[in-house]
């Protein structure tokens, strides 16, 4: 199930909220546990078993690690086993076919064609953080199975993040206040996300699909840029919209999740971009891979190697395909260059550093969005005039006219301007404007979902 669907908004959510607020507090986690499984199992009911296995495994590992706290070696053995099993599940379901295809000379390696369990990359990272945090003493052991299960399968962030670490929500699992302002801020945040996903991302996504489908050789330079800029906007509004909806839904249920995006496209360097893009993933890799590997504490050479490892993994995390690995390494290279000398140069001009960061990110999205390496190369080539059908064609004029107003709105929406204006609004004006905006976005989004011919889910590879 996805949030931006009529089923979720007009059946699942009203039922979940109604029962949640009608039952006594002590039953709320049980209710959430049940509806989380319904949410998760909606598309692939069989995988509920996998989810329950994952919950039980990490729950048991947490108990054991806590019991062996005084015996470091045994605790470590339990932790290692648990992490290995978690990763093995992820590798099997997500990467087995990819490995099998690339090692097809081994006779018994045959692709199985299993459907990827939705959100497995998100929730595996999420659950794994728990035994690690318990081992490190960063979190207390969770003795309540239902509370732990509620954390692992919590539907708001289950399928597309943010990746919530156990220690960040541990206390909220035991106690959540009924706070009207928190619920209202949840509503506002959900509406912002809904609008981003349904009205902006889906809209501009159709433009990207048009250019992606254009036969090789018919792309012009301007067309190739327009197409990939459309994808740049689509993935940001889609992904950050999804995170906004998750954070908003979390608040409606009394949870506070950490932020996942912070206006990434206003960055002045790639280093800054990755502090603003998918923050929960970069934080996860920093805390559980980069720093344990030694981070920047073991000399420059080791630090650069660590960057390479982390970004190769980050790329691969996004999907079992070479282009995602390439995309990760692409960023490793830029981050290394910045670390070595570029960052200092970038400080000299704000304008040039903004342009530089945007161009690097946009070209990066071409690597990300086009899976076939030949096609990807042709597309990036066309962006820089290699094998393109001229500079500009009538298609660009048509689509610029048709999407012009939407593009303008989206570019502004990539900046903090909107939030700034809302903050500056006099209280009385805000008291009227906000409910009106909520109604408007809800109604227009509903119209787009009812006539929903185009509503893709981009993270089925994650």
């Amino acid at each position, binding site marked *: 199930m996805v949030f931006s669907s009529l*089923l979720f908004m007009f*059946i699942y959510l009203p039922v979940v909220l109604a029962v949640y607020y009608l039952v006594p507090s002590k039953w709320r986690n049980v209710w959430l546990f049940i509806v989380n499984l319904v949410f998760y199992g909606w598309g692939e009911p069989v995988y509920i078993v996998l989810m329950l296995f994952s919950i039980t495994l990490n729950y048991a590992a947490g108990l054991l690690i806590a019991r062996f706290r005084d015996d470091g070696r045994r605790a470590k053995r339990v932790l290692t086993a648990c992490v290995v099993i978690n990763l093995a599940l992820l590798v099997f379901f997500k990467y087995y076919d990819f490995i099998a295809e690339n090692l097809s000379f081994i006779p018994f390696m045959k692709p199985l064609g299993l459907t990827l369990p939705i959100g497995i990359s998100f929730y595996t990272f999420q659950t794994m953080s728990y035994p690690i945090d318990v081992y490190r003493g960063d979190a207390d052991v969770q003795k309540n199975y239902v509370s732990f299960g509620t954390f692992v399968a919590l539907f708001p962030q289950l399928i597309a993040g943010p990746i919530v670490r156990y220690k960040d929500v541990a206390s909220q699992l035991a106690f959540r206040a009924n706070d009207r302002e928190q619920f*209202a801020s949840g509503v506002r945040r959900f509406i912002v996300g809904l609008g981003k996903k349904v009205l902006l991302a889906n809209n501009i996504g159709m433009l990207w699909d048009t250019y992606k489908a254009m036969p090789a050789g018919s792309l012009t330079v301007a067309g190739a840029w327009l197409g990939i800029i459309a994808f740049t906007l689509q993935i940001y509004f889609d992904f950050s919209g999804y995170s906004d909806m998750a954070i908003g839904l979390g608040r409606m249920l009394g949870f506070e999740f950490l932020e996942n995006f912070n206006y990434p496209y206003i960055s002045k360097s790639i280093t800054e971009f990755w502090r603003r893009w998918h923050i929960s993933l970069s934080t996860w890799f920093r805390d559980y891979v980069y720093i344990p590997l030694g981070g920047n504490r073991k000399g420059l050479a080791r630090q650069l190697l660590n960057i390479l490892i982390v970004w190769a993994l980050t790329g691969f995390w996004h999907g079992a395909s070479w282009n995602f690995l390439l995309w990760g390494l692409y960023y490793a290279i830029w981050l290394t260059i910045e670390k070595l000398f570029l960052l200092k140069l970038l400080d000299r001009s704000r304008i040039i550093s903004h342009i530089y960061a945007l161009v690097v990110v946009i070209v990066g999205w071409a690597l990300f969005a086009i899976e076939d390496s030949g096609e990807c190369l042709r597309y990036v080539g066309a962006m820089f005039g290699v094998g393109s059908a001229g500079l500009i064609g009538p298609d660009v*004029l048509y*689509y610029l006219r048709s999407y012009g107003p939407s593009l303008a709105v989206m570019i502004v929406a990539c900046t903090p301007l909107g939030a700034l204006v809302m903050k500056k609004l006099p209280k009385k004006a805000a*008291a009227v404007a*906000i409910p009106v905006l*909520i109604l408007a976005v*809800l109604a227009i989004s509903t119209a787009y979902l009812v006539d929903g*011919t185009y509503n893709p889910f981009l993270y089925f590879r994650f």
Partner: protein
Amino acid sequence: MKKGAPLAQILVFVVFIAAFAVLNLVTPARTFSEQENRYLAAAPKFSFAKLFDGSFTESFEKYVTDQFFGRDLWVAGKARAERAAGKTENNNVFFCADDTLVERFSEPDSAQLTANVDAVNALAANTDADVYLALIPGAAAIWSDRLPANADCADQLAVISEVYSRTDATTIDVAGALEAAADEYIFYRTDHHWTSLGACYASDRILSAITGVGGKAPKSFAPKTVTTEFYGTAWSSSGATWIPPDSIDIYVPQGDAVVKNYPHGTEEDGTLYDMSRLETKDKYSMFCGGNTPRLHVDTGSEGPHLLVLRDSYFDSELPFLLGSFSEIDVLDLRYFRTSVADFIRENGVDAVLVIYSVSNFSTDTSVFLAGR
């Protein structure tokens, strides 16, 4: 913030989702959407097998979307929102000048197109009857000046010349006739079909190619308007409810022509004009009573026996051909699935007309049957 402010925000949201949740629950399901001209999804039957193969949840989501309370208004609202956002198209229909809606024509799949040309060539080789091919361009080509500037739409005339250069059949330049009359009401503004007037202009080229004697000019007919309330398929799929309806004209009275229809294989009485269809949404199906595998017309005139392999554009062309043939058989290969060559032999057909819109000829997967 004032204490009342968050409450207003919460209420707007909660009331909105709760209200539609309840409305969806209590309103009965509709089976057919007049506005969209299609059957709506019904509630799927539950079974564990369907749950586990994912088809239950998929159908259920379709059901929720199709049966959403006030669906028609939402669909129309979305089209208006798209227009307000500066879009010049919605659901692959262009908003054009002069209250015209034109469906996008996409670059055809060359394999399908080649297969269909090959099928026509095979038919020409299989039979002694003369085979004619007529491809009908749509409004996207003939009314291209009404499209939004630089509209991203493939070239139908180029497809026609490519097909004509590769076929062994005698080709008929329908496009030329339509282009010459491009400033007249030759296509419906809300539908992909041509009007009776467009069909009349085309009949001149068709008849002179097959019989050597051209058709009559439009002004020699006394057309009769049978409806002014025709909302076509482009209107339905675009959601552009602000566009006024079309009217449908009849040029040729049925006269002495006797029409037999074979909707289920056996002979029934047919008609050139099924007036009862004007009470439905799909008013174009008034011509010949809509899709059917086979029609047989005893025209009451003198002339050769014509076989037509066609799509629905021909339904409004048929009346203009009555005076020039003794018998006309009309087959729709999507439903009539036996050998065309056998049919020609058994029925003593003299000439075969293959007539399709460019759009259908480049996508239809049943044209291959012409070669069987």
